[in-house]
């Protein structure tokens, strides 16, 4: 994963030049299999950076290389394919499909990828996160921690090369949060995935190989 002179501006009628800079000249690279924490106060640009790195959004300047592929050269559908094949996500608010059972939620990326027998893989992933007994449960029948575990199983379902986690423990109590973080790091190790994690929590950040601290849209510190 490599970010080169990455920047994001949005139009802002109130500002002097009509533009508001959210991210400015972000440069870093991360080796495969390593973990990176992006930390910073609210409004520092963490989520925007994550969106750019994961190909969910398009940069105003600079470029992102993911597995040596320049995301700028891909259109939206190309980026979607890339996400499907190489990227996994875990979100603060879980983002499970309410109408789908736990198993169906995990099957979804596999089905979108056209994988045969998606059920088998999905079951294996759910078993891996300790939800063997919860296959048929709907999100509203699961606790917050369980929902996040389903989301983690889903993130790892299609065998991603890189996992993006946006405040994965933000909606959970301390004890559950610790279990979830342990799970993410364990699976990350076992699957040899690169992990990019956005968090407020310095304790969680300290578990990563590297920490980028953002302030006002720029990198304040880059620690290893």
């Amino acid at each position, binding site marked *: 994963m490599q970010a080169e002179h990455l920047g994001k501006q949005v139009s802002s009628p109130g500002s002097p030049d009509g533009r508001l800079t959210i991210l400015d000249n972000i440069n870093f690279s991360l080796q495969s299999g390593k973990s990176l924490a992006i930390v910073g106060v609210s409004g520092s640009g963490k989520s925007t950076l994550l969106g750019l790195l994961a190909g969910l959004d398009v940069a105003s300047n600079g470029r992102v290389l993911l597995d040596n592929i320049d995301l700028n050269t891909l259109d939206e559908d190309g980026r979607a394919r890339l996400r499907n094949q190489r990227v996994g996500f875990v979100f603060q608010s879980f983002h499970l*499909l309410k109408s789908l059972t736990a198993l169906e939620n995990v099957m979804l990326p596999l089905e979108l990828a056209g994988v045969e027998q998606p059920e088998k893989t999905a079951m294996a992933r759910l078993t891996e996160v300790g939800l063997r007994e919860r296959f048929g449960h709907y999100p509203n029948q699961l606790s917050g921690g369980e929902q996040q575990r389903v989301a983690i199983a889903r993130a790892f379902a299609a065998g991603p090369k890189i996992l993006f986690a946006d405040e994965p423990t933000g909606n959970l109590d301390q004890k559950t949060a610790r279990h979830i973080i342990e799970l993410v790091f364990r699976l990350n190790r076992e699957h040899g995935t690169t992990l990019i994690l956005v968090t407020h929590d310095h304790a969680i950040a300290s578990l990563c190989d590297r920490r980028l601290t953002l302030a006002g849209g720029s990198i304040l510190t880059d620690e290893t």
Partner: protein
Amino acid sequence: MKPDILQLAVKSLLRDWRSGEIRLIAIAIIIAVASLTSVSFFTDRVRQATEIQATELLAADLVLQSRRPVPADVRQLALDHGLITTSITGMRSMVMAGDKLNMAEIKAVEAGYPIRGKLRTSSGLFTAESVTTDIPGPGTVWIDNQLFQQLGIQIGSEVSVGSARLTVSRIISYEPDRGGDMFNIAPRLMMNLADIPATNLVLPGSRVDYSLLLGGESEAILQFRQAIDARTGLRIQGIRDARPELKSALERAEQFLGLAALVSVALAGLAMAMSAQRFVTRHFDNCAIMRCLGADQQTITRIYLLQLLMLSTLSSIIGCAIGYLGQEILARLLAGMTASVLPAASVGPVFTGIAAGTITAVGFAMPQILRLRNVSPLRVLRHDMDPLPLGAIGSYGTAIAALAFLTPWQSGNLRLTVYTLLGMLLTAIFLAGGAVMLIRFLHRYRSRVGTAFRFGLANISRRANSSIAQILGIGLGVMVMLLLTLVRTDLLDEWRGRLPEGTPNYFLINISEDDVPALNQFMGRNNKIVAAIYPMITARLVAINNNTVDPDAFPTEAGQRWARRSYNLTWAAALPVANEISTGAWWPGSSPDDDPLFSFEQQIAQDLGVSTGDTITFLIAGQEVTGRIASTRRVQWDTFNANFFVIANPGTLDNYPANYITSFYLDKDDKHLIIELVKAFPSVTIYDVDALITEVRKIMEQVIRTVEFVFGFTLLAGLVVLAAALQTTHDERSYESALLSVIGAGRRQILAGLAAEFICIGMIAGILAAFSATLVEVVLAKYVFDMDIVINYLVWLIAPLACTAVILVAGLAGTWRVLSTPPIITLRQ
């Protein structure tokens, strides 16, 4: 590897069904298609029934007429098609009783006559009539009132018809197939076909009309008609070829029914569009997650479109089934009211129902569904990122296309389709514009009202877009309901008014020139008879623009017929009632004009290929009369006035021998005047059309009743639109109510705020609906139904009140459940 879209779509459909997400849209399609197919099934059956009823006036489903006996192989062909047949032989002949002699129209029938309709006879003059399935037995005849009076005979008297002596056994008071040529026929004598040889009237060269009456299933009739179409020398009369007054009634009925079907389609679409909008809004998150998990735009589009197609097809099938059941129940309810048992519905509506349901669903819901492809995956991080709302063209372009495709199919009338579509489009634009203005107006004055109304008005302004959509939906729904209730009554009453009390029920023909002054005096003495006496001069068309007429040169059969037949010309100074100038101008004044002018009925002008300005030559009593066509006229044939195909200007026909004709209304109580008239003018033929008018009125009433029933279904569809419109903002309203409850608002305060919002929406929608319904009524009355404009001011009172009441009750009922639920549960949902 490519994802299996069909599998994903099926799973998505099942999941959405399980979670209740698509139930509303499915119900909308089901109800829409159910109402649509109820209309189609029922219309189909009613149309068949109406045609059966109409066939009574032909006495058959199809009649073959010829100057020569209908060939035996034709009859055999009819039998092979499973049709029932019966023959009629008709001719004019003198009938003698003692020393009295009268010209009569002889009708020789065989068993089985009439195939449709019933004969009614009585045993004496003006005595009670009864329905009979018999025909005159061999050796006996039945005669009508006129002949009975003219011959001065009794039941049981003998009359001579040609060489045969036959006994009068009954008086015919009604025969179903008599009305058509009423001005050309002499009094009636009906006899048994078996007695014809004994009369020796059928000789080489004698003028005899042979008819073969046919009856059977409409499909068999159609097939037989196609098989026989090429046979020359046979004139084929289906119910639409005969009887102009009936043709007019049937066409009008079809227009009404077509309109009902058309409105059902539009309402169905509206309900679907609203449901689809809600479905899509609730799927933004799902799509964002799917996009995030790698689904490209094409995958999203395919999954949801396929899902929509599967849903609409399945729902349409269910809708068809319910529609079939619905019309079956309706038909049973109607069984006591209709004269005949309704025929079974055909399967056609099933296919058209499924196709129409799917096309409507795709047309109205697809633009919304396509929005899903534009959901940004970034929405997973920033929840406020909704895809751009659809523009007006995006929203309604395919909907209008779907309607434009479906409506001619449903209404079968291009003009009606265009007017209704344009009307709906303009109404939608007008409603949206009006809603924006009224919302702004109310918003400005919200500080002057109480808290509840301030809250309600603030809600409407804040949700301006959805409020406008809601007002549009409700406004259109209520407008349609107004059209179908109040306005429909206006239009139907107007139609009913075409045959008001006082419609002429007596025709006097064969009035000689010498009789005219005395007849005028007679009518003057008895002020109960008011009528204009028209001259009637027999003529043949010999040249058009100085070119001799060759009947075979006319491209159409109708043209050939007009070129061959004789005309009854009249002259008139003023345009007769129930006549309207189509082209050219009516001659001014009543002073005899040196220049002969003619006015042609527009249909025969079209059949003959002539128009205003053409020169026409008629042969009258051996002399040629040439004149210019000054105008063409549209004639309301269904008014029972004495109407003429060709009218000349005063002076043109002065020197030619004329017979005179008149028609007037006479109350039942004054019938003795007819007997006096018969005595005073023995050579005048009096024709009583009371029975015929009653028949036509009966058909009209039945058509009106069926239209009312059919419109009842459309009314239900309108209510579904109302429900869908309220449902669109239900989620948001529930969420806000729960939130208000959390921050301490009491149930009463929340209800007051909601009530204020519903009242405002209801009032705005009601006012706009009343305005647009009036507008559409004016357009329909003037341009489609060709009636006088009637504006129902009651609409302006009823619409806002009813609209407000319905929305208030339905809206509060929908939200009541939320208020009874702990707010935390609502918020979690």
